[in-house]
């Protein structure tokens, strides 16, 4: 044990033999470790926030849809709707889930001064509120009420139509849409429909998808005679555990498999053409954007790591070369090869450790304001119509990732130690007598 302590103090003293060199090598490692920690926290922050916002504002934990609808879901094929939805929703509620039926379709909103194409969500306000939280973010006005022709608009649509509820009265709009329903023979029938409604609220939630060109309208008036004659058809039912915590990601109990099991336990079996899909099945655009960012950023940082490791390799190579004579001396005095290797590994590991430590410290220091305040990208985000995959409206924040912070320091130390092995082995191949005479 004693020898190890001696080797360590030897390594430490060796580091101070060329201070400038040590400092420069350490700086290289510190910069790469610090940058890596910063970038990782940034990406993680965006991912976590996006996932939370998708679940809490957009999808819930799972959706029940027809298989035929799911396959074409990007086109909003409302003719692949199903009915009745009430027994399913009630069974889900008995099984301990919150469920919300929706009819999703696209249409055009007209006001006196303009028009905007929107996606309309026919919702049951009471039930929707139990599954998703965007109704808590009505920026102006209030949320629509059951039984009335009232709609809530996304912020982007409201701005486009110049609807300003903060300083004004609810505004009357006309919704024009083409309803596609399948007739008995399975042929899609298009019916042109126009309904009048009043905009009572503007929604601005942390998830950009709820604030875009979208409108929310009570499902019961849509289905009725004065609406779109939907006859109880819906395109999807959103599901979330009724006791889900705010901001939590869906747990095991909310997976499609568990939901199906729970439904069977209350004695309900889902019609064969319906399927339960997890929220992950709906966010391909987000996953793609996140993956693209992850890969490109990580390749960049990896290159930087390689550069700083080259620095360590260079430093150790030179240190060992210049001390060939000393190595000969140590071996002549009885030090084993293993101990020589260990002493140089310790020296290199110390460089990695100090550099990694400083990097961890720097990365964490930069992280503090990034986690607490974030960077405001709202102007760019809005110019893109909030269409960039990530579900964050304005503030991009980092998140702490203790694993990466610890791991990057450890990896830097270990890799540094390993890098010292080849030059040491080379020096050890030289006979002791030769190395003693080496110049």
């Amino acid at each position: 044990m004693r020898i190890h302590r001696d080797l360590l103090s030897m390594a430490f003293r060796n580091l101070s033999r060329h201070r400038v060199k040590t400092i420069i090598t350490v700086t290289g490692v510190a910069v790469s470790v610090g940058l890596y920690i910063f970038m990782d926290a940034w990406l993680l922050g965006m991912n976590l926030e996006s996932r939370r916002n998708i679940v809490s504002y957009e999808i819930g934990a799972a959706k029940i849809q027809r298989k035929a609808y799911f396959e074409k879901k990007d086109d909003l094929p409302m003719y692949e709707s199903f009915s009745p939805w009430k027994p399913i929703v009630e069974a889900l509620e008995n099984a301990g889930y919150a469920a919300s039926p929706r009819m999703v379709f696209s249409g055009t909103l007209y006001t006196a001064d303009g028009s905007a194409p929107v996606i309309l969500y026919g919702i049951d306000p009471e039930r929707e509120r139990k599954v998703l939280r965007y109704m808590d973010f009505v920026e102006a006005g209030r949320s629509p009420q059951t039984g009335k022709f009232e709609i809530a608009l996304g912020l982007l649509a409201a701005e486009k139509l110049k609807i300003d509820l903060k300083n004004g009265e609810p505004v009357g709009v006309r919704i024009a849409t083409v309803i596609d329903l399948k007739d008995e023979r399975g042929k899609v029938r298009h019916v042109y429909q126009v309904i009048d409604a009043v905009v009572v609220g503007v929604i601005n939630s942390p998830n950009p998808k709820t604030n875009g060109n979208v409108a929310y309208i009570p499902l019961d008036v849509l289905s009725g005679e004065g609406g779109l004659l939907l006859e109880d058809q819906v395109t999807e039912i959103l599901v979330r555990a009724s006791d889900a915590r705010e901001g939590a990601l869906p747990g095991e109990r909310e997976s499609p498999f568990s939901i199906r099991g729970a439904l069977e336990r209350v004695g309900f079996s889902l019609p064969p053409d319906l399927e339960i899909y997890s929220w992950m099945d709906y966010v391909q655009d987000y996953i793609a954007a996140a993956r693209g960012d992850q890969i490109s950023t990580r390749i960049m940082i990896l290159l930087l790591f390689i550069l700083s490791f080259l620095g360590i390799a260079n430093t150790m190579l030179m240190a060992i070369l210049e001390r060939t004579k000393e190595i000969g001396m140590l071996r002549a005095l009885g030090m084993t090869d293993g101990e020589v290797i260990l002493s140089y590994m310790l020296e290199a590991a110390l460089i990695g450790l100090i550099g990694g430590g400083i990097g961890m410290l720097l990365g964490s220091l930069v992280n503090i304001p990034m986690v607490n305040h974030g960077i405001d990208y709202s102007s760019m985000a809005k110019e893109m119509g909030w269409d960039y995959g990530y579900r964050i409206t304005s503030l991009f924040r980092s998140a702490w990732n203790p694993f990466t912070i610890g791991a990057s320091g450890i990896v830097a130390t270990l890799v540094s130690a390993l890098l010292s092995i080849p030059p040491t082995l080379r020096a050890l191949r030289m006979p002791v007598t030769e190395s003693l005479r080496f110049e």
Partner: protein
Amino acid sequence: MDRGRKDLERNGGGVRWPTFLVIAYRNLNRNRRRTILCIVAVALAVFFNIFMQAWIQGMYDTIEEVIRTFDTGHIQIVSQQFEKEKEYLPVQYPLEEGMSVEEMKRRLVTIPAVDAVFPRIQTYASLLESVVKHALVWGIDTEGEPSYHFFNLTKRSDGLREGRYPRKGENACVVGSAFAKKTGIRIGDRLPFKVVSAQFSDKFWNPEVVGIFQFDYRKYDEGVIIVPFDRLQRILVLGEGTQQLVVYLKEGTQVDRVKGELKRVFSPETFVRGWTENYWVAYLRSSTVLYLIIFGVFQIVASFLIINTVVMVIHERIKEIGMMGALGMTRREIVQVFFFEALLLSVLGALCGVLLGGTATWIGSRFPLDMEMFTGGGMKEFPITGTLILHFSLEILGKGFLFGIAVSALCTIFPSLKSAFIEPVEALRR
């Protein structure tokens, strides 16, 4: 000794720089591994810079071209009112109310820098009897524009996949490939839709699909119907007027100068925009500084190796420094010995980096990358084609080379200076 010194100076200084290079070259061979490590590090950094530059420039190129082709031309002219409400593409605010397109064109072509002028109308349409419910109607000179510039920027073609563009005034349209796939529409079918005219009335229209285009620009392939300008002009009750004019110049760089001239031709109610004022172009240009910082960090971390080498070399050869000083080398010359060695290292490294980067970007410019891989088909608002061609240019290679050498040289000057403070007499005894 003094005389010898003066002789030397008369001959143009002591040691000439080719001699330094030879010394530097020989010294590099003294420790090959170290030399190789340094060269690899610099090469990596230079390669990274060149590759990133080519990538970013490739993206700029397509974004700028998309904007020039589909959005603003070199210069776009609209009415002030339209500009204010351009979000929903109103047709109620024609450019220079009462003036005909022909008259405006006549005035514009008198400006010598102007190469071509096209009238355009863009408006939203609600589709009837279709699973796709909205589309953008783009009224253009369907005879002039496809032959004037490339609509498919990747293949450099007019972008037609099948069929043809409608003739002037014809009751016909062409649609995008993704749109056709979604709706199942084919050439020869009718495409009924509704637009809102300049008098706010609903106009129903039923043109025949005569062609299907594929521009490799998602926004258009998925949701744009191209129709003859004059037909749309009549349907929207615009008279002889137009919603916008796009102007193409002989030299795309003269935008700012010509803009002023154009403004004088039109009344003050007109809004004139150059393509460089597009949000995305401006945004990308402003982020150049950020990239410079990233490249700088890479290059500096790579230079650390060279700095280390110089520090070590001076230490190792301290006896030689004493010898050189004793034999009459000035301090300046001794510093140069070490500086040139460091410089040679960075030049060799940068050369390797340029070779690597040049090869990689050349390959990237021949074999375009499918951008869907990176964006997953999201980002519809982003004005970029679905294919990225890396920008291969000698300018990027040259800049990467010079940047690499400049940063390394700056970083190595200070450690080399250290050799000047060594006393030859002391050094000889070490």
